[in-house]
């Protein structure tokens, strides 16, 4: 189809005008329709996204009913502004208005593809309170248990992540142990038969906590509501 068009006799000015007119008209119409549908759906989509974030947020920070967004920058933790670059940090506040916990994303390579989670951290008990798997492609029935298995989820109701004395990491690294061997609060019981997926979760939590827990502990005042 493209070849035969090229083999045509030279293009007359009238034809060029006609082609440009058609393309111009169609492009204008197309642009109009796209912008219109974008504008109409934008508020609805923003609302959907807000609801989705909050659903995950309030699950990993038990007791939180409202949220405020922050950004982790080179300078520390600051409230979100449109041009600030950095890792997103969500603070959840309870009914009494006090800070209940913070949540941030973590990711690592799993069995099939990258696994992405949101985890909630309670700075007062210095422990992780919950995780929510945002995105994964693990084997259904085996690897996807990291999201669905309630026994695995129990690992994260009070997973210890205490900042160490020098303030550059965790006192005890978060590690994975074989199923049933969990004896310390900073350990995670693996899912038997889904070692790689479980290891990915342990690794991403450890990496993220080592990096951010001391920073969070030092910047609590920024996130506490003015009393």
């Amino acid at each position, binding site marked *: *189809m*493209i070849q035969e*068009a090229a083999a*045509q006799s030279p*293009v007359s000015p009238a*034809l060029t005008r*006609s*082609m440009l007119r*058609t*393309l111009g008209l*169609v*492009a204008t*119409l*197309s642009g109009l*329709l*796209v912008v219109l*549908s*974008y504008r109409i*759906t934008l508020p*609805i*989509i923003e609302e*959907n*996204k807000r609801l*989705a974030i909050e659903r995950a947020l309030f699950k990993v920070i038990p007791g939180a009913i409202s949220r405020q967004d922050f950004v982790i920058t080179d300078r520390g933790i600051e409230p979100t502004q449109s041009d600030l670059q950095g890792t997103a940090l969500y603070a959840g506040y309870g009914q009494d208005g006090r800070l209940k916990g913070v949540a941030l994303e973590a990711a690592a390579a799993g069995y099939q593809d990258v696994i992405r989670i949101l985890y909630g951290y309670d700075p007062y008990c210095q422990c992780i309170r919950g995780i929510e798997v945002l*995105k994964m492609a693990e*084997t*259904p*029935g085996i690897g996807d248990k990291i999201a669905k298995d309630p026994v695995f989820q129990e690992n994260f109701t009070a997973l210890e992540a205490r900042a160490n004395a020098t303030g550059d990491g965790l006192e005890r690294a978060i590690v994975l142990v074989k199923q049933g061997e969990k004896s310390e609060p900073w350990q995670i019981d693996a899912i038997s038969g889904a070692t790689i997926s479980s290891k990915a979760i342990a690794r991403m939590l450890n990496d993220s906590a080592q990096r951010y827990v001391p920073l969070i502990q030092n910047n609590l005042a920024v996130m506490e509501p003015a009393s």
Partner: protein
Amino acid sequence: MPGRPEQYEPVTLDTFLRGLWEENPVFVMLLGMCPVLAVTNSAINALAMGLASTFVLVASNSLVSLLRHYIPKQVRIATYIIIIATFVTMVDYAIQAISLDLYNALGAFIQLIVVNCMILGRAEAYASKQPLGATVVNGLGIGAGFTLALLSLGVVREVLGSGSLFGVSLFGENFQPWVVMILPPGGFFVLGTWLLIFAAFRLRKQRRTELGEVAQHER
């Protein structure tokens, strides 16, 4: 070349039904395979993809049909693609607004509707030559055929692979699902099986017609 009025075909029920069986885009014309394999791991995803594709097909082909006398031959493919891409973008935003979960499940395949060969193929072969009425009816037929093909895979894969249908669990807790069905190889196997069944039907029909002709000759 837009068809002349004498070449217009009358709009009959056949115009619609053709898309379902004889000219089924997936099973007969082997078009639009990618989404058929990719989004059919559950019935609801299959249905949503089918409806979205049908909308894009009918809307874009209608616009092409309305403008058929004004589109010079040299730029027709480019024009069709712009029109199709516009409607796909609209559907993309619409689905995000309706259900973010559905949108995440279908992933990039919503935007990939724009390269679904059946839409461009229909625009070139049919919508550019036939008036609006016939285009709409034919488009609905092809879309329905496509949706049916998607559902035939989606239902089988979900029932066997997850033990549920449209999210409703069918077999209870102790059912061991045939997990491979919702994984990529399962998609290939199920589609291959359906094509096999279709081919078997066609061969049998062909043989019967041949036998019928032989019988005619012998009389």
